[in-house]
């Protein structure tokens, strides 16, 4: 026996049997739970989504392209895309401030505010929609403050922005907050002992560590905003070419029994979500490799 044996190497042998599915375990119940989970997933999620894509596929790629580039659809997609992006960016800034304040400072009402961040997750979107519309209309509590300057918020693209900020905020705060919490205090102290000012520490040490989480949160907020419907339609005004969002156009197409057209727009939106999802996964994989946490 050679000295190498000390380290107890793993020996590689060719498996005689084909790969087990699952790997053998003393625990029972894999067949029934796995079977039920996969069947249910397929029936509720996968098959319906496949039907959607197949339906859009009937138009062919150029057919989808034609639907997606009709001026009204294109305008709606642009409204959805750009206002969602704007809302996500505003949330990036204020969401980070909120997370920062909740993690680092103590002030009266902090716990309440912390719990309130999840409100958009819990409040039905239709309720949010009519509440925001009432609040930001020219005769509402906030809308009336802007009325003297002739700024209209509700029933304009600005209204959509307000609704999408509301919807996206918790995604940013809830992704950034835990990372901020777990950030090693010693690293900040090390930075200070090396002579950095507080601003330098925050800009050079804290924010870079926060970036992957922040980007993930922004991407999540964006993905949610692009598809958002309930809270937007009440405050948007829904003017074609101005404040009409893509999900609303799907509903319109359905009401006209243009199933293929609806499926085409839906497929384009699925594509956008899919790309965003891929970006989020890539970000998290990168963050895990680089920082050891997602």
């Amino acid at each position: 026996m050679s000295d190498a044996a000390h380290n107890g190497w793993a020996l590689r042998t060719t498996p005689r049997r084909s790969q087990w599915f699952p790997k053998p375990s003393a625990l029972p119940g894999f067949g029934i739970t796995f079977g039920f989970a996969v069947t249910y997933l397929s029936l509720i999620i996968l098959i319906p989504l496949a039907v959607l894509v197949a339906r859009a596929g009937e138009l062919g790629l150029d057919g989808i392209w034609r639907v997606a580039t009709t001026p009204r659809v294109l305008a709606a997609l642009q409204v959805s895309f750009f206002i969602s992006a704007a809302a996500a960016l505003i949330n990036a800034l204020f969401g980070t401030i909120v997370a920062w304040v909740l993690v680092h400072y103590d002030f009266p009402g902090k716990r309440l505010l912390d719990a309130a961040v999840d409100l958009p997750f819990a409040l039905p979107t239709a309720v949010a929609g009519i509440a925001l519309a009432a609040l930001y209309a020219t005769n509402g509590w906030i809308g009336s403050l802007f009325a003297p300057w002739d700024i209209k918020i509700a029933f304009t693209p600005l209204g959509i922005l307000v609704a999408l900020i509301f919807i996206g905020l918790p995604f940013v705060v809830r992704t950034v907050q835990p990372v901020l919490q777990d950030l090693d205090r010693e690293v900040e102290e090390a930075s200070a002992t090396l002579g950095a000012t507080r601003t330098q520490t925050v800009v050079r040490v804290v924010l870079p560590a926060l970036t992957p989480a922040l980007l993930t949160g922004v991407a999540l907020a964006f993905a949610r905003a692009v598809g958002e419907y309930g809270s937007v339609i009440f405050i948007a005004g829904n003017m074609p070419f101005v404040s009409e969002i893509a999900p609303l156009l799907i509903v319109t197409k359905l009401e006209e029994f243009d199933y293929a057209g609806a499926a085409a727009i839906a497929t384009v939106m699925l594509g956008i979500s899919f790309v965003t999802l891929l970006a989020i996964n890539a970000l998290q994989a990168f963050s895990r490799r680089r920082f050891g946490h997602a």
Partner: protein
Amino acid sequence: MAIAIRAEGLAKSFNGTAAVRDLDLEVQPGELLALLGPSGSGKTTFLRLVAGLESPTAGRILFDNEDATALSVRDRRVGFVFQHYALFRHLNVAENIAYGLRVRPRATRPADAEIRRRVADLLDLVQLAGLGKRFPTQLSGGQRQRVALARALAVEPRVLLLDEPFGALDAKVRRDLRRWLREIHDRTGHTTLFVTHDQEEALELADRVAIFNLGNVEQVGTPDEILDHPATAFVAGFVGEAVRLPVNVASSSLRIGPHQLRISCGKVTGPAELFVRPHDLALATDSQPAILARVLAVRRTGPARRAELALADGLPTVEMELPAGHTARKGDILPVTLVNLRLFASR
């Protein structure tokens, strides 16, 4: 004598990586057997195979000469103590211990009063009387370990299996628990297998020790046999504080680096490995064949003094126990001889 557990040609691989290879082992009834080896040597996998927590890729396991390979974990009646205890965190200590009795089919389940009595007895046995209402999170590591043992004993197992039972504890608690486990074993007489990578623990505690390496057993024997008569180079190198020296054997002389030592080397010839422990070296008398070694350092280990010696350039340094009162100092040259020869032909 009957055999309590017998493994025949046992093998287990994960994803094509062999963890246990063609392993044969016999366990005597009532003995305390330590499974000792480096990490990854297959000892825990073997223990889990015995318990039925893994199913073998090949081979058989017999309990009392009956094939138990196809028996499920439930039916094997083993008491398994997990490395991190695996206490049920939502149950208190008494409920944890009673669990194995309470899950029995109604026909064989003891009455509530009987269960309570057994739990109280076990709490006494593991010296945790009065802590039955505590939850696992409210216990120290050592206490959790003892609850895990009581829980395993409650089902009156045919065999007790312990996976690194003291692995997660600090040194002081380890030593106390070690002695205590030995006492419990002597009192209850369970056939017991325990996995460890700590040779001091294995050698001190066990009746016999099985040395694991690369998924197989290199040697099974009493601590004395293992220490004094290692069967393989691996055992000689793994057990005891041995230093391995490359040597060459030719016509009853041993070549260590530049030194030639006229000494009987048994059947070994050619390139070989010599395993040297501090007690294997002694100061040579004038008549003995000797190597001149240079003292690099002298240090105190408990009551004795040890010299760290350089035999030659390029060889690992060795240690030697100095006789009481010897005044060796750094830089001295000492004549040294081998009083014990653990020699294995190189492969």
